[in-house]
């Protein structure tokens, strides 16, 4: 019997508190890294919908980051688009791309699905790399300004941008949380556990998987829009295979199926990449070793490990009957 992943509000509360107060005692560079962790956290959460809740592991999720980022970049630079048009444009185009890709990719499962999503992402990369007229190819699109809201806080200041990203992150998390706790979300979990069983109960599993794929793509696009604003610069390496793989690692390392776990994974990977790499020369080897160690020792991820620790300390609850049932099972 698999233990259901219950979202622990204590963990969430502590996390929320830490994040809100972070700019007060952390230097600007760390705060901006936290913004990056939040952006990749959104990407990783959207991938978790596919990996953790529907059981479809995708190796091409960076494509949606790319589509969202490039859409926002092109709209912001070439067409002087404001925040809302970039956001809507990014979400819409990502959803459309996800709808198209989903039709192809969902014809496969398991390893085939992994490979197909990889190749679809490489197609997006190829367009970004070669279609110079649209994406400026290898040069990338630069000079993306931070959004202007007419509010007294300028988003060019890292702390303000951090809070802006945090608000969007929290809203995304709430939307996704409501989604996975809805009947739709539970159906996805059912499909993850046994698709044939769900089909025999009369659920249209393909439609559910398709909807999950489009949602994951749309929220991936959202993270892409934020990335364009954060970085001010979008280029083909954002859609490379390595980015997709890092996103998958964030989900697995953080704990797939827990929704907030991937944020921990994103946090760890972003800080390893940007912070540790300053002090340790061979960070690619470190990242690769992290993949291997995660697979070997942490299949449930950091959040899974946290859950296990909390279960151990929460043993004060007297539940002998439940414990006996567990032993029998």
């Amino acid at each position, binding site marked *: 019997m698999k233990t259901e992943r219950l979202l622990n509000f204590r963990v969430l509360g502590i996390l929320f508190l830490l994040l809100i107060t972070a700019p007060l005692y952390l230097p600007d560079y760390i705060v901006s890294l936290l913004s990056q962790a939040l952006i990749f956290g959104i990407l990783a959460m959207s991938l978790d919908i596919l*990996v953790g809740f529907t059981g479809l*592991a995708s*190796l091409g999720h960076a494509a949606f980051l790319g589509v969202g980022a490039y859409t926002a970049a092109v709209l912001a630079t070439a067409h002087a688009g404001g925040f809302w048009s970039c956001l809507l444009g990014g979400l819409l185009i990502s959803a459309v791309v996800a709808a198209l890709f989903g039709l*192809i*990719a969902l*014809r*496969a499962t*398991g*390893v*085939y699905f*992994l*490979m*197909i999503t*990889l*190749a*679809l992402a*490489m*197609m997006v*990369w*190829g*367009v970004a*790399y*070669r*279609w*110079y*007229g649209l994406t400026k190819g290898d040069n990338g699109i630069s000079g993306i300004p931070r959004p202007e809201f007419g509010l007294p806080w300028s988003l060019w200041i890292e702390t303000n941008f951090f809070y802006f990203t945090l608000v969007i992150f929290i809203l995304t998390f709430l939307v996704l949380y409501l989604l996975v706790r809805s009947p739709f979300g539970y159906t996805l979990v059912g499909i993850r556990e046994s698709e044939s069983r769900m089909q025999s109960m009369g659920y249209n599993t393909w439609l559910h998987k398709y909807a999950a794929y489009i949602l994951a793509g749309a929220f991936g696009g959202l993270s892409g829009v934020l990335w364009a604003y954060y970085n001010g610069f979008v280029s083909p390496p954002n859609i*490379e*295979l*390595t980015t997709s*793989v890092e996103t*998958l*690692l964030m989900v*697995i390392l953080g704990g797939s199926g827990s929704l907030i776990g991937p944020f921990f994974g994103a946090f760890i990977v972003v800080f390893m990449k940007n912070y540790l790499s300053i002090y340790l020369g*061979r960070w*690619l*080897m470190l*990242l*690769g*070793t*992290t*993949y*291997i160690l*995660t*697979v*070997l020792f942490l*299949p449930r991820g950091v959040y899974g490990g946290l859950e296990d620790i909390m279960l151990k300390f929460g043993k004060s609850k007297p539940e002998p009957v439940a414990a006996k049932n567990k032993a029998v099972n």
Partner: protein
Amino acid sequence: MEFWIMQTFYGLSYGSLLFMLSCGFTLIFGVMKFCNMAHASFYLLGGYVGITVLRWFGCTTVVFFLSILLSALTIAFLGVAIQRIFFRRLYGQDLAQVLMTLGFALIFQDLVLVLWGGDPYRVTIPQCLGGAFVLGDLHFPRYRMFMILAAAVVAAGLYLLLEKTNYGAKIRAAADDEEMAGGIGIKIPLISAGVFGLAAALAAIAGVIGGGFLSLYPGAGLIMIPLAVAVVIVGGLGSIKGAAVASLLLGLIDSFGKTFVPELAYFTMYAPMVIILAFRPTGLFGKA
């Protein structure tokens, strides 16, 4: 007319390289159901070992073929070692396999950077393989002809091994039904290690030969692996015949695609895969 002949020739030679790269990948997947995303790293390491051998012993024809042999042996050994120590535990877990092998791909990339530096290198081609074979107005680069020949030799060798030898029969038995094969006395761990070593050796050979044609640099491993993936998806996971057909097809599409629609050059490599998936998700010659 010349244009079509030359473009077809270029496409066939590139397809030959793709075949040598992907045949090992599809072999591992067919026999062990293992998705080895570090396969292109074997290509990369093989190429660099070849470069090193050529540097030590000079660039003659004999040394060139010696470098191919030594590179194949070294990488085969490395492949078997990694398979026995790490990959054996991940039987049946697709996601874990992909993540772990990609982790190794990253480690190998950094290793190459440490050992050989970040500059791109080419395998120095011996004199007899340089230049072009002239036929009227057409100049056929000799090295590309060598690549096509090498791929044909590899394909023929694999065919003979799998269809005409005892060992090949055991491999095919293990691929079809591992439990039963183990049940009648075929030593599966030995077969698995042997196939993995063979595949790594093939990738290394592809690396040395490809290194004379494309440059080798640390990032090449992660650039080549999606190409191998595209070949095996179109050809069908586990089918050598599929890999051969698919790699020639993709080579031709790449060659003509780059000429006619350069903006979509990389896109055309992966588009056939999409088409195949629309009509035949298991690939041209794959099993369901």
